[in-house]
């Protein structure tokens, strides 16, 4: 931790644990909403949920809500706030390489997602149980790819939006429709055709499909996994370009 980037990552990790937005939106919000909506439809297999236990459907889905909350809300607000207040200029003047801050955000974002996902599973386990993964390697591939994609999107948004308020507004505007249509809302089978048409190509829908379908044995979702991988590559390259990584 004695390199410039190492010191920055360590400081940012400590700051993340003190940030009420992170604590409420990335850690508490997914857990609370998962508990509520997971219990709303019972635990009996349901045709609306492709014949699986609705609670398990939401447990598998809500890992991606954590990823989206970190990527679309936490990181853009954090980064835009630093840019707005001149924190990044101070780091640059002190000799921190420009890429080191983006790198620190990437690491902190991914670690936050790991911890928040672990918390979500730890809460879900005694309440609804954690379904066994049918195709674990696809789930294991989709989660880190999705995390990289959304964290990079977050860094990109934070490097473009001019202020913390605008980052919060844009982040929430993207997050909530994505959340309702692609992960934490009603299952696609109860949506109308037009809504399903809109929801289908959303990044969070693709990620949720890539995680949930192989996890619950509902199909390989290879197309979704490839799309998430492509998004991860494009978003990472764009974020790296914007932050001179």
């Amino acid at each position: 931790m004695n390199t410039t980037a190492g010191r920055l990552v360590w400081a940012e990790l400590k700051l993340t644990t003190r940030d009420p937005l992170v604590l409420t939106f990335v850690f508490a919000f997914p857990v609370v909403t998962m508990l509520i909506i997971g219990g709303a439809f019972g635990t009996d297999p349901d045709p609306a949920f492709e014949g699986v236990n609705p609670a398990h459907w939401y447990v598998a889905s809500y890992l991606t809500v954590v990823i989206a909350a970190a990527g679309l809300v936490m990181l853009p607000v954090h980064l835009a706030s630093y840019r707005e207040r001149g924190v990044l200029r101070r780091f640059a003047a002190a000799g921190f390489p420009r890429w080191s801050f983006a790198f620190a955000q990437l690491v902190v974002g991914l670690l936050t997602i790991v911890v928040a996902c672990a918390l979500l599973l730890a809460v879900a386990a005694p309440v609804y149980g954690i379904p066994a993964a049918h195709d674990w390697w696809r789930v294991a591939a989709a989660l880190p790819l999705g995390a990289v994609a959304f964290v990079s999107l977050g860094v990109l948004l934070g490097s473009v939006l001019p202020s913390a308020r605008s980052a919060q507004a844009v982040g929430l505007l993207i997050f909530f429709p994505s959340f309702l249509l692609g992960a934490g809302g009603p299952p696609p089978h109860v949506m109308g055709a037009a809504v399903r048409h809109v929801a289908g190509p959303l990044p969070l829908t693709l990620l949720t499909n890539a995680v949930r379908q192989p996890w619950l044995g509902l199909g390989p979702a290879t197309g979704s996994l490839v799309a998430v991988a492509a998004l991860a590559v494009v978003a990472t390259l764009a974020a790296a370009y914007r932050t001179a990584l």
Partner: protein
Amino acid sequence: MVTVRGLRKRYGERVVVDGLDLTVAAGEIVGLVGANGAGKTTTVECIQGLRRPDAGSLRVLGYDPVTQAAQLRPSVGSQLQDSALPDRLRVAEALDLFATSRARDHDELLEQFGLAARRRSVFSSLSGGERQRLFLVLALLNRPRLVILDELTQGLDPAARRGVWAAVREVHAAGTTVLLVTHEMDEAEALCGRVVVMRAGRVLDAGTPADLVDRHARRATVRFSLPDPPALLLDELHRLDGVRHVARAGPQVTVDGDRRIIAHVGAALVRWGSVPEDLSVHVPDLEDALLSLLEPEPAAGAPAAVENEPVGGRS
């Protein structure tokens, strides 16, 4: 230590720095002053390698800030205008974060700048003066050879400003070169050995504060009241050596001229046996010199300003 030649920087169509030359020698405290938008901050940002100049050459501690910023920055400590630290970062953590292998002892620095009791406080809870002192601590942390301070005492109360000035003097006494950007002329006068005045991205003049005052504000003003000032006295006053203008408003008499008038007016009043109790003398300071230097050229053919009840004077 710092050599800038022909520096030019524009933002879009607006030229902010326009062919600026600047030299800072080792061991100096140099003040960079001028009106808002004069290009001071952009200049120091170019010197630190935070902005890429459009034209010109810069050497800072022997390095080119554009191509050798990584080598340069460890030797430069800086306090930037309008910058901050993360709100929830503690004072001691800030020192840990910014410290390199050359860092001074943290406790000693915090003690020196009166922040030892605040080491566990988060940045957002610090007062304005404490924040500025923390920025100064961070600027000095890694034993820099050059310190760049931009609006260091902006918004501080008088006691806090004096505390920060004392800290800057200590830094300078320890052999560090200081480049200070300020709007506060008393600050420049108190701290700087040399002041560089900028307008519209160019250097208008440079020199010691006393030299600048001498060149651009040699005037003095003497004011006093006499219940019924005799016309002959007023006539004598405006014929004194160095007097440019004498004005009367009721019992109040104002005499303007160069600094010789202070002695001459006093002597004349003694000769007349009229020594007013409210006699006051205003000698210009650096702020007057700057205002004189920065005042716009009067338009050709514009009428001269007319004083209230002018009694007389000569140019």
